[in-house]
C-alpha cells in the first residue's frame, strides 16, 4: 500500500461518473437503513400489540367491554393497529347489523366477515409497505456498484494507454477507486437483503395469525348469533 493511497483520497479524487455512482449507493444505503429500522419498529410494535390483545381477548372478558376499552384510544386519534383493528371492524359491523333488527343471521355474519377481511387487507398492506423497496435495493445496488467499477477501470486503462511506462503504480489507484464502488454496492445490498428476508417471513407469520384470529372470532360471533334465537 502506497503512502498516498487512502480510501478518502480515492473517493475524493475519483472521476465524476464513479463519484456519482458512489453518491447513489450512499443514498440508497441510507434510505434502506431508514426502512430497515422503521420496519423493525413497526413489526415489533405489531407483534407486541397482537400478543397483548390476544391475552386480553382470551381472558374471558366481555366482548362489548373489550370494544369499549379501545374506543377512547381511537378518539384520542392514536392509531389502533393490528389484530385489534380487525376485531373492532368486525364487532362494530356485527353490532350495527344486529341493532337494526330484521336482518337474517347469515347476512349479519356475512357483513361482519366482510368488514374483518377489509380491515385485514388494510393491515397487511400496512405491514408490507416499503418491503419491496428493500428488495429492490438488495438486488440492484450490486449492479450499480459493478457499473461504477467497470467505468472506473475503463478510465484507468484509458489513462494507462497514454503512459509510456506501464507500471502497477499507474493502474492501482484507478482500480482501487473503482473497487470502492463495488464495496459500497455490497455494503448497501447485504443488509437490505437480510432485512427483506427476515421481515417478509415475520409479516407472513403475522398475517397468518390475523387470519386465524378472524376465523376464531367469526366462530365466536357465529355461536352468539345462533345461540340467541329470539333475535
Amino acid at each position, binding site marked *: *500500500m502506497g503512502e498516498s493511497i*487512502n480510501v478518502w483520497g480515492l473517493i475524493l479524487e475519483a472521476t465524476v461518473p464513479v463519484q456519482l455512482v458512489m453518491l447513489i449507493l450512499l443514498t440508497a444505503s441510507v434510505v434502506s*437503513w431508514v426502512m430497515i429500522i422503521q420496519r423493525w419498529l413497526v413489526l415489533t410494535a405489531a407483534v407486541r400489540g397482537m400478543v397483548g390483545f390476544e391475552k386480553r381477548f382470551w381472558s374471558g372478558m366481555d366482548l362489548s367491554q373489550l370494544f369499549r376499552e379501545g374506543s377512547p384510544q381511537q378518539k384520542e386519534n*392514536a392509531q389502533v393497529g393490528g389484530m385489534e383493528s380487525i376485531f373492532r371492524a368486525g364487532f362494530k359491523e356485527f353490532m350495527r347489523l344486529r341493532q337494526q333488527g330484521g336482518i337474517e343471521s347469515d347476512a349479519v355474519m356475512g357483513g361482519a366477515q366482510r368488514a374483518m377481511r377489509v380491515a385485514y387487507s388494510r393491515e397487511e398492506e400496512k405491514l408490507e409497505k416499503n418491503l419491496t423497496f428493500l428488495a429492490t435495493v438488495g438486488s440492484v445496488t450490486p449492479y450499480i456498484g459493478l457499473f461504477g467499477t467497470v467505468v472506473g477501470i475503463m478510465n484507468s486503462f484509458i489513462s494507462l494507454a497514454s503512459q509510456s511506462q506501464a507500471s502497477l503504480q499507474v493502474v492501482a489507484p484507478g482500480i482501487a477507486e473503482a473497487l470502492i464502488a463495488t464495496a459500497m454496492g455490497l455494503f448497501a445490498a447485504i443488509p437490505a437483503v437480510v432485512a427483506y428476508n427476515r421481515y417478509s417471513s415475520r409479516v407472513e407469520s403475522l398475517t397468518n395469525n390475523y387470519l386465524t384470529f378472524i376465523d376464531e372470532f367469526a366462530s365466536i360471533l357465529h355461536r352468539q348469533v345462533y345461540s340467541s334465537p329470539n333475535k
Partner: protein
Amino acid sequence: MTVFNGYPLSIVLAVLLHGSVLVALFFFQQADTEVIDIVRPPAVKALLVNENPQARNERVLQQRQAQQERQERKRQEDAQAERQRQEEQRREQEQQASEQRQQEQERLQAEQQRVAQEKRQREQQREAEQQRTQQQREAEQQRQRELVAEQERQRQEQAQAQAQARAQQEADARELAETEVELVMAYSAVIHDLVQQYWSRPPSARNGMVVVLRIRMVPTGDVLDVEIVQSSGDFAFDRAAESAVLKVNRFTELQGMDRRLFDRNFRTFLLTFRPQDLLN
C-alpha cells in the same frame, strides 16, 4: 396498542449508523497510513557514465590535428623523395654525357692514329681498320650495355617509387580507417547510452546478458526497424532492448555525420547491447 410509525427516529438512526461507519473508516485509514512502513524494493542503481561532449569534441579535434600533421609530414617526405629522385636523374645524365665525351675522344684518337698509320704504313691499314672496327664494335657494345643498365636502373627506380607510393597509400588508408574506427566507436557509444536511457530493466535481467540488435537507420537518425540478431537467451531482456531502441526512435546525434561514414557503418548497424549497471 398503537402501531408505531417511527420515521424520524429511524432516519436519525440510519444517518448515525452511516456516519459512524464512515468515521471509523477514516480513522482506521489514518492509523493504517501511520503504521505502514514503506519497504522500498532494492532500487537499480543507474551508473550514468557521463561522456562529456566537449571532451569528445576536443578529442575529435586532436585527432584531426594529428591527421593534418601526419599529412604534412608525408607531403614533406614526398617532396624530399622527389628531390632525391631528380638529383639522381641529373647525376645519371651527367654520367652519360661524360661517357659520351670519352667515347668521342677515343674515337678522335683512333682517327689520328689511323691517319698516322695510313701515312706510315699501308700494310698496317687493315689492322688499324680492323682495330677501329673492333673498337667501334666494342664501344657500341659498351653503349648498349650501358643503355641496358640504365634501363634496368630506371625500372628499379620506378618500382621503388611505386612501392613507396603504395606504402604511402596504405598508410593513408590505415590512418583514415583508424580515425573512422574511432568515430564509429564514439557514435556507437552514444547510441548505446541513449538506448540504455530508454531501457527499462526487466526483472529477469542479469549482468552479463548480451543481445545483438540490427538497427536500420536513415541519415536523419530515424530508426527504420530493429531486429534481434543474437538473443541473450532471455526473451524479456531481448524485448526490452528492442523496445528501447524503438522508443529512442531517432538518434539525433547521427544527423551531422559524414555521409560516407554513415553509409558504411550506420545504415545497418549492429548494436551489442550490454547494460553494465545491473546490481545482480
